[in-house]
């Protein structure tokens, strides 16, 4: 059986691995989005007290400053003393919490790019702070955030491939199976895998760019 037959036969397993990678990606991006948005809002509009702000800064510095592979090991082996976490759960948590740290800074810069005068004007019109954020600042910030967010999306797709170190059988690990059971063909197998990652990446980014175009306000900020 030559390598192309093997690839054809095992293609469903590569797709299965891709599926695991996509679910991992979706879960970590959702965690990152919700937590990251929360951190951003508290950093910008929350109480200025150090008791609130310092833990957020500390969290964001730690998760942005430690390599993800170390975080994966810490979450998988470290937490297991307290709670018997699965490899997939550990990967979602470690990568989701780290993505939250990154996304909080993407959102912070997007919110800060909205001129401060708009907030003041909204308040002067009688809007509450929450209403002003919801109706004035957020819609503009969200549009600004999509561009940088495509970066986060692209890099997280590729980082899901690291989850195999703690035993998550995703696309890269499935590729390893083919390489080792056929005793080689590194170039061919990884070329196919690279193509799969590339297609996923391109599709996701195209959708995000389409969203960006759809949300763009004609004649505004051009």
């Amino acid at each position, binding site marked *: 059986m030559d390598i192309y037959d093997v690839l054809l*036969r*095992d293609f*469903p*397993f590569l797709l*299965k691995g891709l599926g*695991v990678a996509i*679910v991992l990606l*979706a*879960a970590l991006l*959702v*965690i990152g989005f*919700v*937590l990251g948005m929360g951190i951003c809002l508290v950093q910008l509009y929350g109480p200025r007290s150090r008791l609130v702000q310092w833990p957020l800064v500390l969290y964001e510095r730690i998760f942005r400053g430690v390599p993800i592979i170390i975080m994966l090991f810490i979450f*998988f*082996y470290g937490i*297991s*003393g307290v*709670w*018997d*976490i*699965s*490899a*997939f*759960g550990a990967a*979602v*948590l470690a990568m989701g919490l780290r993505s939250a740290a990154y996304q909080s800074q993407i959102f912070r810069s997007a919110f800060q790019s909205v001129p401060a005068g708009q907030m003041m004007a909204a308040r002067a019109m009688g809007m509450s702070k929450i209403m002003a954020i919801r109706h004035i600042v957020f819609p503009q910030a969200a549009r600004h955030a999509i561009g940088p967010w495509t970066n986060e999306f692209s890099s997280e797709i590729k980082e899901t491939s690291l989850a*195999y*170190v*703690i*035993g*998550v*059988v995703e696309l890269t*690990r499935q590729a*390893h*199976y083919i*390489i*080792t*059971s*056929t*005793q*080689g063909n*590194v170039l061919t197998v990884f070329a196919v895998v690279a193509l799969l990652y590339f297609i996923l990446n391109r599709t996701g980014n195209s959708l995000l760019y389409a969203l960006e175009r759809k949300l763009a306000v004609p004649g505004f900020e051009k």
Partner: protein
Amino acid sequence: MNRIKASLMPAALMGTLLIGSGLATTSFAQDPYTVGVEASFPPWAYVEAGEFKGIAIDAMEAIAEEAGIEIEFQDMPFPSLIPALAAEKIDILATGLTVTEERSENIDFTIPWWETNDVVLVPEDSDLNVFTAVCCGASVGVQGGSSQQAWMEENVVNSSDIDVELSKYDNYVTAVDDMAIGRISSVIVDDTSAQEYINAGKPVKMAGKIYIRAPLALAVSKGDPQEILGDLNQGILAIYESGEWGKIVENYIPGVTVPAIPGHMPDFVDTYQKPVAGLPELGNE
């Protein structure tokens, strides 16, 4: 794979919920034992067409049947397996695992089921011999965390003036491929795997053999918290005596001489002290 599915659905549904039993794998008494394997290590364990295969896989299934226990396999890269066993993330380790003193301090070994010697692999067209392949500026490939790496560090790199650079790889297939493109000059690997590469038509040959008589065994967490060491020991002996072991090995490495079980049991392993779990008549005095 069931484990992944079970934890994946709730993870997707819950999305942001950090708490929830879906992300955890709580152990119950009737749960199958999790057998950790390195599934990129033929002929011991590998995946072909989505199925676990290999000597360790087939033998483990036979032993489980013999002992009347349920098992499920969990794949992990080799350097993660021993930490996972030590942290009790897996219950049994079944791969081409060499018995070493260092490892025996962190995990408990079953009786040896195989014996290997190491081989110096060089490219087919190379004129290096067993001496020149591991000296004088040679770059030698090993699998990271393997017994070959430990042996090379102890006997060559740290204890002599021989100028050798060790390159550590995630698995041996990458090491052998890296040698084929000339990045390293030789690879130290066990003789079983080496034969496998040659049979598969890789452009490599054996420059020589290092007789270390290294026993291979299964392993469980230190102190045998699941109390399965005795079952495994009896199971290994039972499939050897019934001839099933020989058939499994012959299936994967045709023509190989099967070492007797129980083989050489090194003194430094505490679980080899008499009485051995499940086999009280065996063991070192």
